[in-house]
């Protein structure tokens, strides 16, 4: 209490921070209320998934299930969910790995190599960033159909291998990297590939992490393309397969099916949410680096 100075003096002691004006308190409380509301759909989803069919539609809100049941999860696993999960894992990891490698190599080439037409080529690459994937999906689908590349893993993976986003991210990163280290390696007799794999790529770890996370979530959550090229039940990816639990809006069936639907959604959400919570700093930094510089 020694330094309880007059309120508002510039040189107020650290204690002054604890004095909260009512406006700030109200703003803070409002914000926190929104935080709770924002998290509520997740809680409600999990809670519904654990309820017995009779307890789901209640005239009053019941946040906690009266009787916990795993019946809804059993219904979900009656479908080939594990198969869908394996499909999703194979597709998302392969596509992410391939687009990381191709992105890193192409980005490196754009940042370091001198070749004729580099500027034009890079502009073309960037221009495709402006074209939303839905635009190219009809011609792409036709092409894949003609090449008989449907209903197999290659059909899922190939379109996402050449990721412009990944090329761009790596180019920007390599441009900011000092050349001297690579020059030293060259002087010591390392070729282009050696220099790239043993010097440049290890230095690009932050870019690799950011790109890997963003690419993986994109691939994991991809919906329209897998919906088009998966012709049979066992070739569906997890998001597409889980969509079959969608209850028809306004239909009578929906009264029965929200339990299994929410169980399916819980299963689908947990992996991405876990990855996000563990790596959230990289997530947000990744978005900043793409969102602002892109």
């Amino acid at each position: 209490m020694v330094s309880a100075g007059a309120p508002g003096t510039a040189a107020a002691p650290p204690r002054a921070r604890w004095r909260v004006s009512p406006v700030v308190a109200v703003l803070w409380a409002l914000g926190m209320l929104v935080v709770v509301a924002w998290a509520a759909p997740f809680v409600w989803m999990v809670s519904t998934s654990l309820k017995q069919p009779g307890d789901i539609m209640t005239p009053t809100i019941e946040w906690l299930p009266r009787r916990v049941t795993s019946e809804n999860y059993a219904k979900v696993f009656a479908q080939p969910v594990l198969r869908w999960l394996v499909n999703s894992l194979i597709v998302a990891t392969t596509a992410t790995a391939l687009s990381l490698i191709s992105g890193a190599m192409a980005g490196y080439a754009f940042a370091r190599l001198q070749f004729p037409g580099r500027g034009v080529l890079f502009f073309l690459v960037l221009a495709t960033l402006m074209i939303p994937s839905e635009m190219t999906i009809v011609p792409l689908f036709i092409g894949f159909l003609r090449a008989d590349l449907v209903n197999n893993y290659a059909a899922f993976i190939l379109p996402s291998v050449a990721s412009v986003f990944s090329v761009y991210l790596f180019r920007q990163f390599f441009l900011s990297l000092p050349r001297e280290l690579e020059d030293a390696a060259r002087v010591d007799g390392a070729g282009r590939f050696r220099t790239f794999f043993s010097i440049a790529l290890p230095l690009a770890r932050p870019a690799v992490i950011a790109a890997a996370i963003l690419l993986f979530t994109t691939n994991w959550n991809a919906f329209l393309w897998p919906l088009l090229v998966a012709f049979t039940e066992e070739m569906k990816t997890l998001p597409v397969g889980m969509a079959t639990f969608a209850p028809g809006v306004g239909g009578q069936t929906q009264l029965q099916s929200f339990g299994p639907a929410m169980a399916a959604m819980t299963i689908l959400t947990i992996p991405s949410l876990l990855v996000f919570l563990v790596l959230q700093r990289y997530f947000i930094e990744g978005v900043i680096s793409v969102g602002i510089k892109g």
Partner: protein
Amino acid sequence: MGFGTYVSFTEWGVMGDPQWVGLENFRRALADPFVPKVWGNTLKYGLIVVPATTLTALAFALFVNQRWWGATLARTVFYAPNVVAVTVIGLVWVWLLDTRFGLINQYLGAAGVPNVPWLTNPAWVLFGIALASIWWDAGFSMVIFLAGLQDIPKELREAAQVDGASKFQVLRHIVLPLLRPALSLVATLLIIGTLRVFSQIYVMTNGGPANASASVIMYIYRIGFREFELGYAAALSLMLFATILVVTAVEMRMLRVQRW
């Protein structure tokens, strides 16, 4: 792209080869009553979603950027829906927006508001879908605003405060004007996102009721992949792409003007 442009001048039902029909597909689009309908839906949806998401995201960014307890927690929670698959967004919100037993209407009912037929009434369905999209998307825009906020030099705010500006004045006259680049980026991304809106609608209403929520891409999807008229679908795609190009070009021009 080039192939798509070519196909848009043809009639092609997947089987067999495309037949050259010239501008027929484009003439058909102009006469098709569904084309103004789906463009109108998309526009209405954009008029709801773009301002609402921008304001929500801006408020979130300002809230999270404070040094008070819970800011990091709030940032995590606000961003979390963005990492979740669109199927989840759609399904969970179908349940939340259920007219009789949905959480939203139950709470509104407790506040004395009669049940809103969020997804079953043509007049409400776009609002219902917009709610889900805001929940899904606001976190991403928030991060762009956050990056913008962190680019504002501290000295500027401090100088203003020393000069006796209130917190609100600092926000109004310093922070918001300097956030303009972030604002245009967010707006551009949201407008483009609106023009290509599809998956939420596909999962939540499949375009219904009475086509009131059918977006442009939804229609292209139906024409191309349900009725297998790939030529016509490609023509519709080309028109959408041209629109997106124009929007992007206008936005970039505006951004450049602002820099002067």
